[in-house]
């Protein structure tokens, strides 16, 4: 492999890993703070991608579709939390698994009713449709670089939001001791609604960003959900920083797995997870607990 094609694979790995981070960060936040395992998280990614497809068809521009889609996803997340997830906080994991499994079936069928089961393509936005020449024959599309930049900006924003703002302080406190936060006069219900809506919006945004490069297809939600689980397990549940590093690790493992071991491409990611479990069952970057 020469330098230029190696560079292409590295850029692909980073781009895939960062996109994965957008999905996994929402999953790990919702679990870390609200204690909820959400199987329907992958559906938000799928809904985001289909939303990008529908809105692009209506408005003629992907960027406009994303600008409209993110507030819609936020509102959808807040409504869903209010309607269903708020009832799950004091239930056990089993009931959470079951309810969110039911939601997957509902979202998939609603998608099938609304848009059908076909695979759709979303055009790359015209402004970003060029590519950068790496050498005489190879070049790299600008849009993929743009995705990485946007994801990095969001990761930095998330880091600042959680580490440096008042809201972030409340979020950190809420993950530590729900009752204490509440008795200090902070409305934990509102806090949870914000976190959940944020998680939904991040997953939906990842779906929207991915739609021009991966196309839009029915099974995309469960595919990304299971890889996100791998990320969360490797990174340690509840740790956004761990999710970031694990996303990149999984991005590299998957991309280079496809190049080096094409026959076993689907398995490499799980191999990473199995290895991580053998070395550190609590996640490579998670806090060590007594258990």
């Amino acid at each position, binding site marked *: 492999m020469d330098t230029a094609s190696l560079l292409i694979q590295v850029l692909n790995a980073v781009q895939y890993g960062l996109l994965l981070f957008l999905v996994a960060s929402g999953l790990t936040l919702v679990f870390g703070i609200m204690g909820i395992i959400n199987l329907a998280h992958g559906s938000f990614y799928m809904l985001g991608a289909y939303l990008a497809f529908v809105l692009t068809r209506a408005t003629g521009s992907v960027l406009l579709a994303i600008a409209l889609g993110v507030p819609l996803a936020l509102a959808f997340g807040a409504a869903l939390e209010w309607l269903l997830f708020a009832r799950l906080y004091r239930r056990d994991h089993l009931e959470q698994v079951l309810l969110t*499994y*039911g939601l997957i079936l*509902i979202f998939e069928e609603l998608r099938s009713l609304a848009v059908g089961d076909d695979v759709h393509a979303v055009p790359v936005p015209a402004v970003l449709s060029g590519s950068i020449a790496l050498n005489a024959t190879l070049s790299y599309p600008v849009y993929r670089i743009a995705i990485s930049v946007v994801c990095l900006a969001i990761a930095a924003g998330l880091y600042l939001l959680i580490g440096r703002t008042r809201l972030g302080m409340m979020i950190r406190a809420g993950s530590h001791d729900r009752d204490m936060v509440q008795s200090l006069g902070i409305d934990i219900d509102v806090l949870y609604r914000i976190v959940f809506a944020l998680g939904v919006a991040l997953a939906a945004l990842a779906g929207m960003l991915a739609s021009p490069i991966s196309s839009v297809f029915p099974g995309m939600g469960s595919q990304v959900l299971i890889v996100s689980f791998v990320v969360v397990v490797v990174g340690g549940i509840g740790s956004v920083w761990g999710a970031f590093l694990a996303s990149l690790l999984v991005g590299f493992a998957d991309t280079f797995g496809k190049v080096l071991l094409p026959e076993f491409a689907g398995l490499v990611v799980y191999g990473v997870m199995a290895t991580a*479990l053998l070395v550190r069952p*609590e996640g490579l970057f998670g806090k060590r607990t007594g258990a």
Partner: protein
Amino acid sequence: VSRKATRWGQLALCAALLAVPWFGSTFYTELAAKALVLSIFAMSLDLLVGISGLISFGHAAYFGVAAYAVAWLTPRFAPASLWIALPAATALAGLCALAIGSLALRTRGIYFIMVTLALAQMVYFVFHDTGIGGGSDGIYVNFRPDASLFGFKPFDLRDGRHLYYFIAVLALLTYLMLAQMLRSPFGRALMGIRGNEHRMQSLGYPTFRYKLAAFTLAGALAGVAGFLYAVLYGFVTPELMAWHQSGNVLLMVILGGMGTLIGAVMGALAFVGMQELFSNLTKHWQLMMGAVIVLAVIGLPGGIAQLPTRIRRALAPDGNRAAGDE
């Protein structure tokens, strides 16, 4: 609704299931056979979820591996021997569960759910992407296993009724074995682990080994179900071990009520019934299934098995209810 009534209800259910091949059409016999196969599958998961407190979201992997074993063991132009194929398929499923369990059981709680799902998905990809199982197309099983033993043929699985009763007997044996196990020291220890693992450890129980034994046994029993499924339908695909299958069997266990075994059976019957009912109504039957699941979680904690108790509570005068709750 007294205990006696519940017992009569169970007997009536058994009688109804045994009568199906005589009164139902071929179609309904096959449907009831499918429900019984899924009952075995659901009971095997109940051993983990309801009895040991281990929420496995990857139970379809063992079901699917055993189904593939039938396809592998059946020669091209002849049936396999039942007495070799069934133990081999069961053992293979058990071995897979042993391997996955020894890794997944290093984690607990929510990690365990995610890890069992991810590892089962890995098995799915092995069958889907590589050549060992005919890829995503799956394999036909052209011959049902032959029950001949030393030249004597006690029954013939090619006959729909014989197959039905063979499945019914295996379902009953699974139930009796698990029910007996629940009363044994092993079963008590598993329930103790579900209640408080640390306490069981400090009492000297090697809890990891107990959990691994339960996980392996549950995988092997799921293998029995997978074996029967492949024999019943004569066709195996990677979808048998897809995560929707794991979700559905978990749904059966919870829908029926966990930890009771009979709840798992009722959950499997209810699931097959609903699937049949909804898919006759609309192509988008999963939407109705999803709605039922969401409403059941919100409105019916404890599952169908708790319904009689809940009705009794609701009918009882207020004074009795307070006394009953204490």
